[in-house]
């Protein structure tokens, strides 16, 4: 039978990112898929040799803009482990809150893109409209929409005032309501089910053996989530992973949808239980005077005259005052990282692992980042053969590929 080789990507309308797949097809059926990576490879692990360990936080945040907060969190936890820094309890809760908000925005982003992949453009718009609320929360509490830069070694840079917490809770209630309205479409619609059910099935054994992580793994029936290891405040908050059993694109979609709602609950719980107190342990080292700085205010968009509320169906309360007094309460920690550590956190796309090695100088010796998509590409290569060409975009998207993570 005639075989055709079809290049898919790197610049492709359905792909948000430059992944290149060489698909060998036989009568519209994919028989082999070979990836070509490297379109986003920057080599930033190497930058640890020119930046000191505090500045590396800003670099690792830019491994991936979508889950920047969790990269920084994982990195900081590693350094803290090496240096034996005890993070203030309040800072742990704040990390959890921002981390989970990141998960919400990332999942909403993905749900939108996924809807777009099977041609539901208006659903895409709806999800992104809800997502803007989360982005507003980020901007109001951190000063930037995407790369929030709240984590520093030893704690967090910013605090949440009680009014801000209240405002966040209000926003969450509205967003949750809006998301629930979309539930029937994304999970129960006939066409959606036709496009996703039974497509790209990853069996339970395969998922484990191929090293799948995150919603990929949980969509195939494994209850494994790095949040169970109790990083940040999860040790105190407790956590139950969400599991689906079918292992197809639909199951992965359902996992992500339910996780979005679960993250809302975690944020609420964390806000409710958050203890009062200091937010950052002072780490001495490269920058002697690196006290946590509080940057106040909105960065001032160019078109400030946009009236946000006009576009939301329900009028939101205005963001509370952004000037938080710099509460630089600090337990001093001296020294430079010397030793090795492995840390894991759960990113929206799955488990993220950092290996850090310091040799007692201000630069790290080695920073190794194993990102979730990196682990999810082998399973993708295993599920693509045998599917129809028209399903390729849906299946590729269903792993939530983040190529800039993969290649760093």
């Amino acid at each position, binding site marked *: 039978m005639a075989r055709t080789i079809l290049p898919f990507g790197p*610049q492709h*309308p359905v792909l948000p*990112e430059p992944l290149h797949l060489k698909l060998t097809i036989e009568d519209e059926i994919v028989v082999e898929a070979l990836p070509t990576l490297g*379109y986003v490879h920057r080599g930033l692990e190497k930058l640890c040799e020119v930046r000191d360990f505090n500045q590396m936080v800003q670099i690792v945040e830019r491994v991936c803009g979508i889950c920047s907060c969790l990269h920084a969190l994982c990195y900081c936890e590693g350094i803290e482990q090496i240096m034996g820094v005890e993070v203030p309890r309040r800072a742990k809760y704040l990390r959890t809150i921002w981390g989970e908000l990141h998960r919400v925005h990332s999942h909403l982003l993905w749900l939108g893109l996924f809807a777009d992949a099977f041609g539901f453009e208006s659903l*895409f718009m709806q999800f*992104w409209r809800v997502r803007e609320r989360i982005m507003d929360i980020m901007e109001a509490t951190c000063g930037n929409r995407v790369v929030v830069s709240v984590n520093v070694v030893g704690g967090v840079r910013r605090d949440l005032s009680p009014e801000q917490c209240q405002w966040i809770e209000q926003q969450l209630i509205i967003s949750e309501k809006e998301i629930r309205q979309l539930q029937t479409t994304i999970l129960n619609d006939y066409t959606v089910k036709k496009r996703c059910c039974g497509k790209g099935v990853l069996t339970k054994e395969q998922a484990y053996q191929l090293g799948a992580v995150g919603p990929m793994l949980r969509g195939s029936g494994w209850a494994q989530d790095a949040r169970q290891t109790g990083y940040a405040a999860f040790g105190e908050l407790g956590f139950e992973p969400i599991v689906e059993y079918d292992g197809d694109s639909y199951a992965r979609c359902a996992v992500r949808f339910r996780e979005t709602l679960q993250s809302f609950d975690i944020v609420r719980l964390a806000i409710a239980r958050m203890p009062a107190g200091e937010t950052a342990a002072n780490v001495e080292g490269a920058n002697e005077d690196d006290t946590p700085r509080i940057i106040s205010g909105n960065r001032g968009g*160019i078109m400030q005259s946009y009236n946000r509320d006009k576009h939301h169906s329900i009028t939101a309360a205005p963001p509370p005052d952004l000037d938080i007094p710099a509460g630089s309460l600090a337990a001093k920690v001296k020294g430079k990282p010397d030793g090795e550590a492995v840390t894991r956190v759960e990113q929206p796309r799955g488990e993220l692992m950092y290996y850090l090695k310091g040799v007692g100088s201000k630069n790290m010796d080695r920073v190794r980042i194993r990102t979730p998509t990196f682990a999810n590409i082998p399973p993708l290569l295993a599920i693509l053969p045998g599917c129809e060409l028209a399903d390729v975009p849906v299946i590729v998207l269903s792993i939530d590929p983040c190529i*800039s993570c993969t290649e760093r």
Partner: protein
Amino acid sequence: MLGNLINQGRIKSPWVVHFDCGSCNGCDIEVLACLTPIYDIERFGILNIGNPKHADVLLVTGTVNHRNKHVLKNIYDQMPGPKAVIAIGACGCSGGVFREAYNVVGGVDKVIPVDVYVPGCPARPEAIIDGVVAALEKVKTLLGMTA
């Protein structure tokens, strides 16, 4: 007469194509956010399309590396003139935080001519929209439409 009309249309409704070089996704999702209800660039007639052959404006996010520079050049060459290129984010302008990394060539202007630079890490959606509007001025000059 007809040419005039087409040119008018081009200015009023520029089509953009977005290409992600080595960006961290921060800028990408802000470009996408421009399309969605809060920012909604379609109300200015700006339309995002996948095919460079139909596009007037190229939006590039992220740094250029040794592998994707060929792709970038290729996409640029496929676009019909008059065209404008916008580099988005600190990365697209100069290489940003990754400037010193070994696989990074630098900003977009190392490979293709850039008309508008939109700074920010990530650049805000408002700034990106502003950048597109600024790029249209250049297209206007190319078309000889400035009085």
